[in-house]
């Protein structure tokens, strides 16, 4: 009896152990079959690179995979494999992989946090490679300055964006505005907006323009009012409560007061995407957005008559400042084949890849020459977007206060909701950010 029990136990534990072992070895990596013709011997060792992106959508995936495929065919030593992770996970995963010492070879990352990542030792210094192939002049200078940490590059810009004003020409004509002449200053814009409003009793059927909507909110307007300075001056000192930022806030509030917060909220409730986008649906006449918004109009606007114009300026000559962002390619710290990663990144930022990306996505790319390619410039909208890069600023995360925005936002909300006078709110934000910097530089 006892014996039976014992053997039974033994058998069971052996079986258990075996299954765990088996399941662990089940996924042994088989080497990738070489696709060389007739088994000719390759003199050089092949290197496989793992390239992480968040471009998994139906439109973007084929585009990036075609570029990767072209690169793989262009030479016979490096094979790049594409790995897709969703936008929300990719960088957290990468962080864990870097910490574990097993990162991808190349990754797409946010341009604004490049110096922050460099300061935290998360990406690879590219100086050594740039000394060999100096490709710095490929890129828009504003983008290049964003990837520098202590004057050394830690990433290569890949694509970028800029915000412009889309406006409905038909509605301009309807209310007697010149459809070929977009308002030049913010004051003129407000006048035009009033004309474009359409009310039925006290309900709004159309709102000409409201800074509360779309992609150019108070923060961006404040930067535009301040001749391209956002929250920190040249020396990195916070200037949140300077006069121009306060003026911008009052500008935004003048819309709130005129239209009414309730009306703004109620009107916004019906905003959707695609055909239901408020600009495409004709509910809002003037709509600031990134350049790729054009593809939405093209696909869902059924030939609507629209124009694009630069962001207005505060007064004649103060500048049509806009704000942009974008993504970079970088080599995570501790990647195994940095030399080969560099080769691939060089290819990705070179003419053919950048041109293909720009054409297929209607996206702004980081490569200057490609942006000005005659074929692309044939499209007036694209040309306008590229020209807008001259007045587009990119704002890297300040290293001594990476999360300062969490202190500015609540004060902005308080002022916008009429809970705090604007001046008071901005003074408070200024003080909070000064304290934060003091904490971080102790």
């Amino acid at each position: 009896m006892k014996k039976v029990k014992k053997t039974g136990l033994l058998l069971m534990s052996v079986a258990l152990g075996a299954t765990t072992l088996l399941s662990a070895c089940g996924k042994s990596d088989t080497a990738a079959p070489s696709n060389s013709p007739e088994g000719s011997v390759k003199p050089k060792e092949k290197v496989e690179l793992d390239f992480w992106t968040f471009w998994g959508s139906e439109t973007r995936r084929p585009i990036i995979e075609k570029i990767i495929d072209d690169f793989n065919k262009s030479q016979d030593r490096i094979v790049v494999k594409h790995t897709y992770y969703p936008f929300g996970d990719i960088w957290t995963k990468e962080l864990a992989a870097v910490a574990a010492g097993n990162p991808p070879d190349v990754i797409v990352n946010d341009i604004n946090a490049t110096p922050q990542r460099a300061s935290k030792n998360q990406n690879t210094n590219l100086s050594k490679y740039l000394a060999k192939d100096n490709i710095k002049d490929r890129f828009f200078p504003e983008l290049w300055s964003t990837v520098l940490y202590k004057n050394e590059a830690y990433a290569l810009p890949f694509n970028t964006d800029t915000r412009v004003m889309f406006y409905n020409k038909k509605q301009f004509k309807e209310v007697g505005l010149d459809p070929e002449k977009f308002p030049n200053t913010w004051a003129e814009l407000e006048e035009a907006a009033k004309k474009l409003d359409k009310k039925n009793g006290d309900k709004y059927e159309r709102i000409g323009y409201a800074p509360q909507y779309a992609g150019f909110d108070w923060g961006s307007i404040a930067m535009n009012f301040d001749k391209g300075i956002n929250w920190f001056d040249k020396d990195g000192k916070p200037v949140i409560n300077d006069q121009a930022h306060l003026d911008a806030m009052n500008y935004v509030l003048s819309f709130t007061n005129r239209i009414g917060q309730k009306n703004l909220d109620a009107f916004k409730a019906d905003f959707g995407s695609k055909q239901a986008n408020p600009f495409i649906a004709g509910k809002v006449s003037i709509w600031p957005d990134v350049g790729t918004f054009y593809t939405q109009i093209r696909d869902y606007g059924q030939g609507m008559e629209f124009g694009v114009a630069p962001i207005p300026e505060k007064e004649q000559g103060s500048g049509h400042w806009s704000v942009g962002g974008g993504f970079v390619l970088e080599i995570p710290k501790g990647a195994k084949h940095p030399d080969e990663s560099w080769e691939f990144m060089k290819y990705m930022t070179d003419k053919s890849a950048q041109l293909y990306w720009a054409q297929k996505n209607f996206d702004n790319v980081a490569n200057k020459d490609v942006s000005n390619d005659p074929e692309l410039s044939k499209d007036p909208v694209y040309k306008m977007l590229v020209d807008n890069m001259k007045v587009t600023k990119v704002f890297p995360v300040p290293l001594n206060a990476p999360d300062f925005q969490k202190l500015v936002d609540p004060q902005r909300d308080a002022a916008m909701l009429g809970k705090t006078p604007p001046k008071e709110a901005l003074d408070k934000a200024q003080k909070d950010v000064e304290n934060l910097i003091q904490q971080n530089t102790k």
Partner: protein
Amino acid sequence: MSSLAAATKPRRGSLERREARQGFMFVSPWIIGFLVFTAGPLLFSLYASFTNYDITSQMDWIGTRNYRNMFYHDPLFWKSLKNTLFYVAFSVPLTTIGSLLLAVALNQKIPGMRYFRTVFYLPAVLSGVAVYILWSMLLTPGTGLVNVALSWVGIEGPAWLQDPNWTKPAIVLMKLWGVGGGMLLYLASLQGVPEQLYEAAELDGAGTFRRFWHITVPMITPVLFFELVTHIIGGFQIFQEGYVMSPDMNSPGSPMNSLLFFNLHMYLKAFKTFDMGYAMAMAWFLFFIVIILTIINMVLSKFWVHYEGGDNR
């Protein structure tokens, strides 16, 4: 293997020892897993909370600086703690009472009850981001279903997620939608209350309310207690709601940081600014709050939780 049917009288000591050894052998995968994947990281995070750990570049001992910063220099720490406490204080009693009343209502013996139980339980099955987005739509001021329904009875609803005074109440309200989960447990324990107790009480002239208060409630206190403890622990961990339901996508926790819950603040510190050491200090602080509350709960439970078969536990 009919070995368990052994009726022989074994020598106690050696058999017990062997059984213990075999028992440990069987649970060893779990024990090893616990040490490697739970206890290890726990101790690591406790150590890291006293360092300037940022995952990739540094890990120097800085003593209690993280804890001092937390209490004295981070205004958002207190703000986020208040937000979380507010949520726990309102959400726990409301969901507890809500699910209990729902369970009592669904415990009636009338035809079609099973259908209603299913319907009320369904929302508890759904969870996560999809539900939050759905509720963001329902809570839209003006056209959202919640305010439209309120307008039928002549109430002008607030701007819910846009108005910092109403954001947290909106989340508490939304959470009431998921009472079906608790309801199921209460329902199970209600079914276990012996019928003859009610009959006896009825003979003694106890009304409906008295029967409920003196029989039903004491009989289900163990489940009430269990629900209370798990809800408080779960309540302190609220995170996603603030992350997803903020009207300004670029500012999780907006408006006016009214939805910046403790864990959301912690997450942003850990993964946006890479202050992992600080985030771990926050995590341990939260752990102590929860453990103290749980101990208080355990102590208080002696006075009101009634276990069948005496109070000798």
